[in-house]
């Protein structure tokens, strides 16, 4: 149905619709603390009938834009741990290369299946965050490699009003988890913050605020590695990626500067339900196209 509808519209109308949809995705993403990709790819494929590879390519470019825009602020505030980011980018870029190359080889319907699964998982992560506070990992185990690389850091906590030091542990576990996150990102064109943040927060012992900022910082490089592969393969279509990119950035910018983050849990709860619903749609499209 969507595909037939798409052929009846003019290029101008298509551009306007894609732009508005991306604007909404960027706005919603920044309100809920997600990248736009998780929203964007389903809307482009399910509602607008865009080929999933083009949708992923466009989404990757949008992820670079939103990550760079937000990271510029976080880095300035020194929330980002630049050394941890650089170290873990070894794994995320390698993973992104794997994922992006894999996306060119496997059938489109498997992309829908994987996307649906990751989407459902992300919804559950949000749900867990909704229901209970984060459990703080115990005192970090001393780690020789983390010491040698000087990964430890500190950040300025606004609420406590002081500089909070922290120690990093299990860098190799982090590296392994980040390889997985990078692969998912390259395969599906999402920032996969839902995978990166727990890897740093729970496995490596970084404070949640630092994990979020550092994850956001790494998304740009990870997505750039994937986007390179998509570009070389001709899957970055300027007619789709252009309006997507402009819309998402404008939406995310508006969301973060003019609106306060939505804290009301019912809206988040509603979003989790929507996310699960769309995940089922994506799975269905993959199983019976």
């Amino acid at each position, binding site marked *: 149905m969507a595909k037939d509808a798409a052929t009846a519209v003019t*290029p101008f109308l298509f551009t306007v619709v894609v732009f508005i949809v991306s604007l909404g995705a960027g706005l919603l993403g920044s309100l809920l603390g997600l990248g736009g990709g998780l929203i964007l790819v389903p809307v482009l494929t399910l509602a607008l009938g865009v080929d999933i590879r*083009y949708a992923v390519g466009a989404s990757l470019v949008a992820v670079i834009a939103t990550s760079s*825009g937000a990271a510029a602020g976080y880095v300035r505030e020194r929330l980002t741990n630049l050394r941890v980011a650089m170290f873990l980018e070894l794994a995320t870029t390698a993973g992104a290369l794997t994922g992006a190359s894999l996306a060119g080889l496997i059938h489109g319907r498997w992309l829908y299946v994987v996307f649906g699964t990751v989407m459902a998982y992300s919804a559950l992560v949000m749900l867990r965050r909704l229901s209970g506070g984060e459990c703080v990992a115990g005192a970090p185990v001393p780690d020789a490699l983390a010491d040698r690389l000087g990964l430890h850091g500190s950040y300025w906590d606004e609420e406590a009003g002081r500089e909070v030091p922290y120690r990093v542990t299990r860098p190799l576990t982090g590296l392994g988890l980040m390889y997985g996150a990078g692969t998912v990102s390259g395969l599906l064109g999402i920032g996969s913050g839902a995978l990166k943040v727990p890897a740093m927060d729970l496995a490596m012992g970084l404070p949640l605020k630092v994990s979020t900022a550092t994850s956001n910082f790494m998304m*740009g490089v990870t997505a750039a590695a994937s986007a390179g592969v998509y570009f070389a393969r001709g899957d970055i279509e300027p007619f789709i990626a252009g309006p997507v990119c402009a819309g998402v950035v404008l939406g995310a910018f508006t969301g973060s500067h003019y609106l306060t983050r939505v804290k009301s849990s019912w809206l988040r709860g509603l979003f989790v339900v929507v996310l699960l619903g769309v995940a089922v749609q994506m799975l269905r499209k993959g199983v019976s196209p």
Partner: protein
Amino acid sequence: MSVEPSLSPAAAPEALSRDDVGPELLISHLLRSGVVLSLTLVTFGMSLTFFHHPDYFSSAQALQRLTTPERGPQGLTDVLAGVGEARGQAFVMAGLLVLMATPVLRVALSLLVFSRQRDRAFVAVTFTVLCLLLLSFLTGGVE
């Protein structure tokens, strides 16, 4: 057709004594200018496309032509040639390439910072990441 977001310095909690121009500030500036430049090119390119093709406002067939595979500038040289001829889509593509290059430049800048600090381990780490990034632009074309 869209308004440029002036990614102005986030009315940031630029707290107290943070006056030294460290690598953080450089990276922050680099990221921000990359996004702004890219969006300018993309917006300009999109406007140019519609200016050159009035039929895009009315013809439904044009969309099919646009979204079928194997069109548009795909290689780096195609993009540059298209920009020379002032083709709208080539400007959009150039903007997207600037965006893709922004994180790569950020890594290159970090390499410079680490080598100036004589941090051998991190020079190696950063150099590897840079190689992986450059590799990514080559692998897709090989298949």
